[in-house]
């Protein structure tokens, strides 16, 4: 594979994590190269959300072992906002409402923080507005939408599209998408998938967590991993997702147990 020659964007070795004393991730190894899309699939409760949350630094979780290198740096030693400024982005499964916080102000503050870290100048108001409007349009939002408070009173689909809009605005290196496809109707799914494909690029990578293979019809993964009970039990190409769809997770469990 051509990417073998490049430096990995992300190297995860033996990652174990959980809440309190309860171990949820029981040793995960994964290497992601620039340009790749990895899909993480698995039944409910297998640890998919925990996995990306731990990578993003969510304080609810405790790392119990292993290491994660992001562009060669110790990711786990960084605060969540530091990770974000370094180019990591988590699209949340349940985006949080921020009452009284306007979209425009929030996104401007975020973009300023990220750009400052990258040594780029702040955008002038007019430039920022133009950029934001362009990204909003790509996700099917109008001007009025940008005047609202972040996620407050948004429909489920609007919340998910808002996450992808932020992804396109902030231009990270590594996107972690936590079930961004769940609960979307087919039109919203197309818009979201379109946004993800726009984000794809040779220097960027995506870890896409999903319960269903439906989104993979629109966003073609390079690798598919199946997470069960806190471990990646099988990895493969695009065809693995299709096989899963046809046979169900029970099939994997039996296959794995049979060795």
């Amino acid at each position, binding site marked *: 594979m051509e990417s073998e020659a490049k430096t990995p964007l992300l190297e995860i070795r033996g990652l174990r994590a959980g809440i309190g004393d309860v171990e949820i991730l029981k040793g995960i190894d994964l290497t992601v190269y620039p340009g790749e899309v990895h899909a993480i699939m698995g039944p409910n409760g297998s640890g998919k959300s925990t996995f990306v949350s731990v990578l993003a630094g969510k*304080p609810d979780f405790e790392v119990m072992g292993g290491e994660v290198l992001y562009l060669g740096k110790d990711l786990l030693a960084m605060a*969540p906002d530091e990770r*974000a*400024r370094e180019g990591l982005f988590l699209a949340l499964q349940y985006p949080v409402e*921020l*009452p009284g*916080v306007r979209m425009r102000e929030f996104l401007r*503050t975020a973009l300023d923080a990220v750009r400052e870290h990258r040594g780029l100048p702040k955008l002038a108001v007019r430039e920022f507005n133009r950029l934001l409007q362009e990204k909003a349009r790509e996700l099917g939002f109008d001007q009025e939408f940008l005047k609202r408070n972040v996620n407050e009173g948004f429909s489920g689909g609007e919340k998910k599209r808002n996450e992808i809009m932020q992804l396109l605005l902030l231009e990270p290196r590594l996107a972690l998408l936590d079930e961004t496809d769940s609960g979307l109707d087919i039109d919203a799914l197309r818009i979201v998938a379109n946004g993800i494909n726009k984000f794809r690029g040779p220097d960027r990578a995506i870890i896409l967590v999903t319960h269903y293979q439906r989104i993979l019809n629109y966003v073609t993964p390079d690798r598919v991993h199946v997470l069960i009970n806190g471990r990646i039990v099988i990895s493969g190409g695009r065809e693995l997702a299709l096989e899963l769809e046809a046979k169900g997770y029970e099939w994997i469990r039996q296959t794995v147990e049979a060795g």
Partner: protein
Amino acid sequence: MAQTTAVYESYVQQFRELERDFPVPAWLEELRRDALGRFLDRGFPTARRGNEPWKYTDVAPIARATFRYPARHQASLHLGDLRRRLPWPPGWAKLVFLGGRYRPDLSHPPQPGDGVLFLPLAQALAERGELLEEHLGRQAVYQDDAFTALNTAFLRDGAVVIVPDGVEAERTLHLIFVSPLEEEATASYPRVLVLLGRQSRLRLVESYIGLRPGPYLTDAVSEVVLQDGASLEHYRLLLEGEQAYHIGMGRFYQGRDTNLLSVFFGQGCTIARNDVRVVLDAPGSSAYLHGLYVTDGRQHLDNYINIDHIKPHCTSRLFYRGILDGQSHAIFGGTVYVRPDAVKTDAEQEDKNLLLSREAEVDSKPALEIYCDDVKCGHGAAAGAVADEALFYMRSRGLDERMASILLIRGFAAAVLDEVRLPSLRSFLEKQVVRSLPRLRGEGD
């Protein structure tokens, strides 16, 4: 018990000195004596059982300590000390009280053309004795309230504000009560009487501010009467010192077709009590009460608010919000009463809290007592959202913790601050929210 007896004896002794040094007309002397008797009968409301109004606030520390009247001659107070800590627009009339006593040398009273009349209590007794006798102690009923009784017993000075019939006061009036500057534990008893004539209008700000950290007691009573058709825009700011005990009573009486907007801002201290009672005693009136309280460390702040709908066709809104950090404790007890006559009442209340720490605690108890059909009443769920999720969400976009907290808190506070109609006060409060929370203070703040 012996210690407690000594405390009450100390109040009696101080009362004798007050009677000796500050003689007042017979009717007021009688009022003060009666109030002292009531206070001694009842004692401080320290009972931990069957004491609903004080269920969450234990005033034992106040009952145990001996707070003394401040000395006659106070350490010097500079205007600059106040200007830095308070909203200070040039256009406002400013009345400064130190330890409960009026300080004309630091004040800018309203001018004759401003439409509003301010009198220090002593002057009001001499010039408007009858008016005072009619109103003083009428709204702030002390018979069943120890702290109101104590304030009334020690009535010596205060602010009397009068807006004549039909007058719309031009100038905003700022009453500034500065806690005593002595090192020892002092008590002050600020007193305010506001009389709005028919069809009159006033903007009034009351500030209670401490300039030193040590323990002291502020026992404050404000009585406000809105006669038919009057409108009042009222703000109350609690900016007491870290270790202060502040027990504050606001009593509002609304006549026919009156409008009250009252916004409270409270920064926590050892014990802070914001006790408000609004009586809607004639049809066609409205009372909008908004509040924002911010607590940190081991602070304790107790909102105890009662709105009494007695007559038909009145509207009330009681919307409060709290921001809690550290191990602080805040209480919202809001009760709206709808009496049997009060048909077509329209009442709503809601209290929301933002918990920045898992150790902070809020007890939020909105309540409706309805004795009448044909009303529209509601109360919002008492929400205490822990801010963790929101803060993580914002940090996951690259905002550092301080920036994320500021955005979140400013957004949360906006719902209350948007009700502040004085721009200079609004921007002061926006900054004060940040100053009240150590976690938000940046370099150089």
